[in-house]
């Protein structure tokens, strides 16, 4: 007797735990690979999975085994030309052909790398591991896209799928009791009467009365039976209502200097930084918007394409971008509803007297409303006035303001990690 069982619907992810254990154990390797990948990747596939390779030596599970040497007799298949007594010169360790001794069993060991793919999600997990978004996330009721379906008692109307059987039958039972109680009381009384009548002596018995009583009882019984077991208005349904759900949403302002002093390479670095920030925000918020603002002497809100690729040159007035950001914030992203993040990239060049304006706008109008503002200066040169002004902003808002310097591509990821590294809460 055989049993044939369809197990295809059973869980498929039996090995997930073991896979996780494996990833956990080789965290260090994977992190290193992720860090390297961050620097070498093109910007558009920043958030794909990644091939991770670990030296086989590091993950091998050692067991006692024989090493090369000693006297080994080996039986091999597929003899073509050998006869007993043939002598074969020993070849190098790797010699596979010609029956070179140690061949099959232990060649190639320790050379290979154990290569495997981690998914996008795992990749991002490792990428942002240990990082946190500073400052509390505001949750607001906004928009009407997100609802949560919750139970809200019982209703008389609904779809058959939501029928509440227990409540329906309970209602039917109550209705039946209510509709038939007087009749059943009547029946009981009549039956009593009938019994009394039937107990009387045969002579005294009034047969016509007995028949009448019987008829009456039968009639009442029929009427009781006519009350339906289940009626339309007995049906009760579970009521579900949609409750709007608070969503967290964020807007990220990318501010970039596109003046003549910023070349394509510098812009590329800025873009990588913005992208990292964007991915990071996306993980923390259900909904993220991005506003691109670029500026030279005047600022302009642009789409992504234009932001990164159009060429314009001119002088630099950083405050123009900040002013635009302030305006957009006021018009479209009230701080009561949005988590606002600012990220600014620049090479540090600015009109000298403009830096103090920047300082003022930041302190008065921007910093009080944003969750976090980060500034990266992409330059191998010394800092200029803007850096100093921003430093003073940092001292005023140490929790919400961060600034770092990036010299080349290799710095981006470490700087990013540094900006968002988990702070030990007091």
């Amino acid at each position, binding site marked *: *007797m*055989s*049993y*044939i*069982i*369809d*197990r*295809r*619907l*059973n869980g*498929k992810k*039996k*090995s997930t*735990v*073991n*896979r*996780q*254990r*494996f990833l*956990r*154990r080789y965290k260090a390797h994977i992190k290193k690979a992720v860090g390297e990948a961050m620097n070498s990747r093109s910007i558009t596939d920043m958030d794909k999975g990644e091939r991770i390779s670990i030296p086989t030596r590091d*993950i*091998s*599970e*050692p*067991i*006692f*085994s*024989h*090493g*090369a*040497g*000693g*006297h*080994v*007799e*080996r*039986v*091999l*298949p*597929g*003899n*073509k030309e050998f*006869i*007993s*007594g*043939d*002598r074969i*010169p*020993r070849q190098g360790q790797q010699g*596979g*052909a010609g029956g*070179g*001794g140690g061949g*099959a*069993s*232990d060649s190639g060991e320790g050379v290979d790398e*154990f290569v*495997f*793919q981690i998914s996008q999600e795992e990749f991002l997990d490792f990428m942002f591991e240990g990082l946190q978004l500073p400052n509390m996330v505001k949750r607001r009721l906004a928009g009407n896209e997100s609802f949560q379906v919750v139970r809200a008692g019982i209703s008389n109307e609904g779809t058959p799928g939501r029928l509440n059987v227990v409540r329906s039958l309970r209602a039917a039972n109550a209705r039946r009791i209510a509709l038939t109680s007087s009749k059943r009381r009547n029946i009981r009384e009549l039956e009593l009467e009938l019994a009394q009548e039937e107990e009387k002596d045969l002579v005294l018995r009034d047969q016509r009365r007995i028949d009448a009583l019987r008829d009456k009882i039968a009639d009442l019984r029929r009427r009781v039976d006519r009350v339906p077991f289940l009626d339309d208005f007995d049906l009760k349904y579970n009521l579900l209502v949609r409750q709007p759900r608070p969503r967290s949403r964020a807007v990220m302002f990318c501010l970039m200097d596109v003046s003549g002093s910023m070349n394509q390479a510098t812009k590329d670095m800025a873009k990588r930084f913005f992208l990292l920030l964007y991915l990071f925000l996306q993980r923390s918020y259900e909904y993220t918007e991005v506003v691109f603002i670029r500026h030279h002497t005047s600022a302009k809100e642009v789409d992504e394409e234009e932001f990164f690729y159009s060429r314009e040159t001119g002088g630099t007035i950083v405050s123009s971008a900040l002013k635009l950001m302030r305006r957009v914030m006021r018009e479209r992203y009230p701080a009561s509803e949005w988590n606002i993040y600012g990220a600014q990239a620049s090479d540090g060049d600015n009109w000298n007297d403009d830096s103090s304006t920047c300082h003022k706008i930041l302190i008065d109008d921007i910093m009080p409303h944003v969750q976090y503002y980060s500034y990266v200066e992409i330059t191998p040169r010394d800092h200029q006035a803007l850096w100093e002004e921003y430093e003073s902003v940092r001292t005023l808002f140490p929790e919400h303001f961060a600034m770092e310097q990036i010299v080349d591509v290799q710095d981006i990821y470490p700087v990013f990690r540094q900006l968002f590294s988990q702070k030990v809460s007091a």
Partner: protein
Amino acid sequence: MLDTFTTGTNAPESESGGPISTNSEWTFELIQEYDRAIGELAEEFGLDTYPNQIEVICSEQMMDAYSSVGMPVGYHHWSFGKQFISVENNYQRGLMGLAYEIVINSNPCIAYLMEENTMTMQALVIAHASYGHNSFFKGNYLFRSWTDASSIIDYLIFAKNYIARCEERHGLEEVEAVLDSCHALMNYGVDRYKRPYPISAVEEERRQKEREEYRQRQLNDLWRTIPKMGNGTEEAVERRFPEEPQENILYFIEKNAPLLENWQRELVRIVRKLAQYFYPQRQTQVMNEGWATFWHYTLLSELYKRGRVTEGFMLEFLQSHTNVIYQPSFDSPYYSGINPYTLGFSIFTDLRRICENPTDEDRQWFPDIAGSNWKDTLQFAMRDFKDESFILQFLSPKVMRDMKLFCISDNDRENEIVVSAIHDEDGYRELRANLAGQYNLGNREPNIQVYAVDTRGDRSLTLHHTQHRRRPLGKDTGEVLKHLHRLWGFDVHLHSLNGDEITASYHCPEQGRDRPEGDEESMLVPKPI
């Protein structure tokens, strides 16, 4: 929710007429019908099997099953994850096809069929696993005496739950460390000569409690440091501990390691039990696969003879079958050792030939078998042998010629490799003996035993490796010793002996070179008993 189909219910009318199916799509009804047809044939041929449980799974589940070494319920460990990842990678990149089947030595015998297989493949797997392997598990003496098919699933559940509880209580890292160390020594956690008791989950849990207390008492006795009161005569007879060398290193650790906690000992025990469960499989690979291959070939050919399967079916089947028993020759880039399927299949097939159509050569080589009833002879060969003895007994000159086997002798003291025997009259016996030796686990794995424990001194553990034809230990040895050291808790020494002469020594923690060598040697050289 499981859909269970039971064979035997609404049996189709077509008793022996016509092919069972004509296209390659499978359905549960067809599987059921094939199973019934194959089952009836198997009975005709005298195969005795456990009841079958055939489970249809998808490829991902197959990979799961793969990576847990075929255990249907496995405890969690990163090494299984590693296995899974590499299987998954290779499969996704098309580097390897998944095995068509996995079969578990349990009662009922569980066989997995993959969803993606064609009807022909499903029938092949049913014949191979559910009747071939199954009857081997039930019949072979090693499986009969060393594993208990009815209780293994229970035990695996016990093990999984116990390990999960330990992880909760002692942390993942702690448990993982112990398991790592145990896995490294898994091949040395086997009793080769004693029959273990059957294990069952409930019993196991009850006994586990008892063991906990008992062990602690035992240990305390062994490691007692309070001097005994008395006249001191006992001191004179310094007993070596253990009195005899111990081959089951994990067992020795479980019972005697001074520092292990009770739960750690239990983990050692679990790994040891699993090793014991897999031990027969490691010793009967050629026989087991050969037997199953022989029977899927025989059963399906018989079905064809009786007109129950079509030509198309047979063509597809034969193609898979030839792939399975393909043996690349030694100089092929695909060569990776002797294919156990080929070797086993060839021997069993030739055995049948010897019984049915013996030649003079066969009469000379196998006087008892030539001309006998082939079913009885094959049953005998399956029941009472393991790979080593099976090859030694039944490898016929014809198979050696067909496979063109030859033997090379590779002695590191000589400059050239010598072809010591080929498939000719002079070479058959040597060839056969050497091939059998190749399947002797005792030769394949280094022979390492617990030799002594310094119970009075630094509690160090000394192991001896007895060399087989001067073969040295591999380069992982130091790593394994670290694991052993973790379990033992004190210094561990391993001496590799050729005869009475120590040719290499390994220590953990590693010893500096500054220690005077002569001193150390005189202390550690064993006196021949």
